[in-house]
């Protein structure tokens, strides 16, 4: 049963997904097909690095009201980041030029609020270990992937 309110159809697959908490700690990491799988230490390090970069980018803004990096474009990939009002950041590494990733991130955020935050055994800001979240997330991502095949 998929209750996403946003109908998201990402037109290209994502390589991996990170979720970091307000203080920059990695609470969820899932790899969906990058050639170089990151081990735990690396993923933790990169997540903290991204958290700092996100914060510094706010300082360098030439106009007031900056909320941080939303899209980072590189030669081999694009990185999309969504920050919730509670400063939890969801970011995905996707193919260059992928569309629909913002909607995908919002859907992931909804799954997060439904299956993680509403889980009475989950402590906020801790690593996510919720089966239903994993299940629905896998279904969401693989459904989008199977569209391309």
């Amino acid at each position, binding site marked *: 049963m998929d209750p996403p309110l946003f109908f998201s159809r990402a037109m290209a697959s994502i390589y991996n997904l990170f979720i970091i908490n307000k203080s920059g700690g990695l609470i969820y990491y899932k790899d969906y097909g990058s050639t*170089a799988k990151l081990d735990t230490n690396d993923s933790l390090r*990169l997540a903290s690095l991204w958290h700092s970069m996100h914060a*510094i980018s706010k*300082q*360098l803004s*030439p106009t007031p009201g900056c909320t941080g990096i939303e899209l*980072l474009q*590189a030669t081999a*990939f694009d*990185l999309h980041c969504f920050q919730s009002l509670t400063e939890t950041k969801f970011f995905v590494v996707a193919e260059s030029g992928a569309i629909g990733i913002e909607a995908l991130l919002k859907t992931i955020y909804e799954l997060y609020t439904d299956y993680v935050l509403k889980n009475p055994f989950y402590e906020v800001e801790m690593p996510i270990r919720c089966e239903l979240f994993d299940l629905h997330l896998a279904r969401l991502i693989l459904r989008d992937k199977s569209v391309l095949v």
Partner: protein
Amino acid sequence: MRCLYIFNRNGMCLHYHVWLRSLMTLSPQQDQKLMFGMLFSLNSFTAKIDPVSSGKENNPPCSFYSFRTNTYKLHFMETASGIKIILLTDPRIGDLREALMHIYSNIYVEYVVKNPLYSPGQPFRCELFNMALDHYVKTLQ
């Protein structure tokens, strides 16, 4: 078009040009140092998080060329000699990689590097460079 930074390999800001900037959170020196540091870290972050690297490094490591926030978009280019050109613009602007290349090869190299009075590695102030830059930037808007 908001502002432009040019850094050399050692992190020294060779040029800082501002067109429209309503907020400067830090002093110019701190701002430049922070900018350089952040770009350096972002480059190593990009190389590490690259999902398609073959791991053998026979091709050049992946580097980022732009990032966008809700208030600005930053465009970045690094040349082989370590000169980094950064442009901060409105977030709706598209890809400016060719423009940065043009700024480097036709404006920076022409008016600064070829200037016999300029010693490399020092901040420069060159009227011809400023004029050419302003003129080129106007054509982009």
